[in-house]
């Protein structure tokens, strides 16, 4: 455990991630606006991917209705800005809140359904919310609406950023949305990591691996899954509001698009490695590279993405990252607990006597729940 080599690599990894985070925060200071916008797109896709990975990869909830939360977040933000005259930053929070509130009745309905029925049920609910948003005449009905001109310029913080960076208002607004997206991504990564290593997270993974065994040691699957469903609705809703604030125009078909906000996200997660934390990051990188490489060929990158996802599901279920870990044994952000030295020894030996065949990680998860 206290292997100095291990500690050293840990320190190095921490340092490296701190430098990366610092560099990412500093991007608007030196990079052109196009790069900031590109990175914003990458980060928001990553947020969606992290959320869907949490749902499907860890909680076993294969949702095809994530576009409901993106759309509701976007529409609530537009309502906050246009109808109630609030600052867009407050609007984003309201967007996240609206998506979270919507997730509660949605969970009541969809959690009655299993497996494939759940997938179709979430999709239908998302389509209902799309059609309902199209009836909201104050926000343009089926044709949608735009944010009033100058909304971005008057946004909280833009003036200060403009001064510091010495750029136009539009570039300052881009920098601000980029920082918000980066903060959201980091918060979500840390929250996912801490959650998955917590009691509840261990319970979640135990349910995924063997529902009956988990239940027999007192894990309540429904309670944890509902919690994850609502938590990811918050993340997805915030992300939706943020994305459409940057787009500045919303229509029901764009905001509730199953292809953009769910299908691609599923591909990204599966190609990267479902059920792992670094997986979505790798997947987003692959997606971005494909999009760049094939920018001149229209929708061809979508075909390639589809054709890439199919063999991965057929031959390498654990995706690029999972395969990499299997081959090398190298693991970043491990979610398993090693045998805890701080735990009293008789506790461990008692368990060892009762279940000699089990591995260390299993023992830890059993004792903690």
């Amino acid at each position, binding site marked *: 455990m206290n292997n100095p080599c291990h500690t050293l690599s840990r320190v190095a990894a921490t340092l490296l991630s701190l430098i990366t985070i610092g560099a990412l925060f500093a991007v608007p200071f030196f990079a052109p606006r196009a790069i900031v916008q590109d990175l914003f797109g990458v980060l928001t896709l990553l947020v969606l991917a992290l959320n869907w990975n949490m749902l499907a990869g860890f909680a076993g909830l294969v949702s095809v209705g994530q576009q409901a939360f993106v759309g509701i977040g976007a529409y609530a933000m537009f309502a906050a800005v246009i109808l109630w005259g609030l600052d867009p930053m407050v609007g984003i929070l309201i967007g996240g809140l609206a998506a979270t509130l919507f997730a509660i009745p949605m969970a009541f309905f969809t959690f009655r359904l299993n497996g494939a029925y759940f997938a179709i049920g979430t999709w239908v609910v998302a389509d*209902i919310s799309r*059609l*309902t948003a199209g009836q909201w005449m104050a926000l343009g009905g089926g044709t949608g609406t735009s944010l009033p001109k100058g909304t971005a310029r008057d946004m909280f913080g833009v003036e200060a950023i403009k001064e510091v960076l010495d750029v136009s208002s539009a570039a300052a607004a881009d920098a601000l949305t980029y920082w918000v997206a980066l903060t959201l991504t980091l918060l979500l990564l840390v929250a996912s990591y801490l959650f998955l290593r917590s009691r509840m997270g261990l319970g979640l993974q135990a349910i995924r691996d063997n529902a009956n065994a988990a239940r027999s040691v007192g894990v309540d699957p429904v309670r944890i899954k509902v919690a994850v469903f609502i938590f990811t609705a918050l993340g997805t809703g915030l992300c939706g509001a943020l994305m459409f604030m940057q787009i500045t125009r919303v229509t029901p078909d764009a905001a509730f698009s199953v292809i953009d906000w769910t299908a691609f996200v599923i591909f990204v997660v599966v190609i990267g490695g479902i059920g792992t934390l670094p997986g979505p990051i790798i997947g987003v990188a692959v997606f971005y590279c494909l999009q760049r490489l094939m920018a001149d060929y229209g929708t*061809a990158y979508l075909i390639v*993405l589809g054709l890439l*996802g199919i063999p991965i599901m*057929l031959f390498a279920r654990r995706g690029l990252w999972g395969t990499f870990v299997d081959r090398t044994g190298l693991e970043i952000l491990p979610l398993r607990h090693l045998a805890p030295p701080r735990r009293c020894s008789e506790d461990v030996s008692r368990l060892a006597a009762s279940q000699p065949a089990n591995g260390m990680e299993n023992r830890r998860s059993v004792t903690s729940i």
Partner: protein
Amino acid sequence: MITLDTIMQGILLGGLYALFAAGLSLVFGIMRLVNLAHGDLIVLSAYLILVIASAFGLHPFLAVLVAAPVMFAAGWLLQTHVLNSVLGDNLLPPLLVTFGLSVVIQNGLLEGFSANSQKLSAGSIETQSLQLGSLSLGIMPLLTLATAVLVIFALNRLFYTTALGRAFRATSDDTVTARLMGIRPNRIFAIATGLSLVVSCIAAVYLGTRANFDPSIGPARLLYAFEAVIIGGLGSLWGTLAGGIVIGLAQAIGAAVNPEWQILAGHLAFVAVLLVSPRGLFPRAND
């Protein structure tokens, strides 16, 4: 105002949805495969029929006879080479693979045929109608419903009176035991998917003659079809017809109240049925 006319239109529309759903019901019932590409496969069949009809100057109803064997072969190959290896307890692999297929078909059709909407022309039959007292019913919608009933009747006969049907049911109930009895599930599955695409071809003719179609309309058809299958209950073909009619009726009534509420009303009917009975109306098999 909900009149007898609205109700009849709803039932006839339900016939079309039942046709969309019949192939899906077959595949879902036998191997629990969630085929998210089903809608796009119907659209693909419609384009295939369009190409055959215009290349040989055939009537769409005759072009189906050429397209159906092609789609059967496509279904067979798809199942044996791709889908058989993703079947299992885990829902995600088939879901992702068929989603991928859906994206590939949609964008492939977009590259090949552009986003312009197309239509299959069935000639003068399209505009003819039948007078029943005060009701006026289109010949094409009536033909659609009649075809749906016929297709489901035929599939049901196949299911319950033939050796192949027995193999279907046995594999659906318990794949391992069926294998012990000398059935090869992979072959059974390949036949099922082939048949499901033949039914898709039949559905495609009515889709294409009834209204315009373009490469992007697949997912919406898939959603209606899935709603019909789930409302009907897993593995029940007559249930699928009933489910299609429930969706058709709800949409027609919704559209009569406000034209913008058509699709919404169908979805709400789906949610309402599942709130009362989460396994659908007439489930045959356990999932």
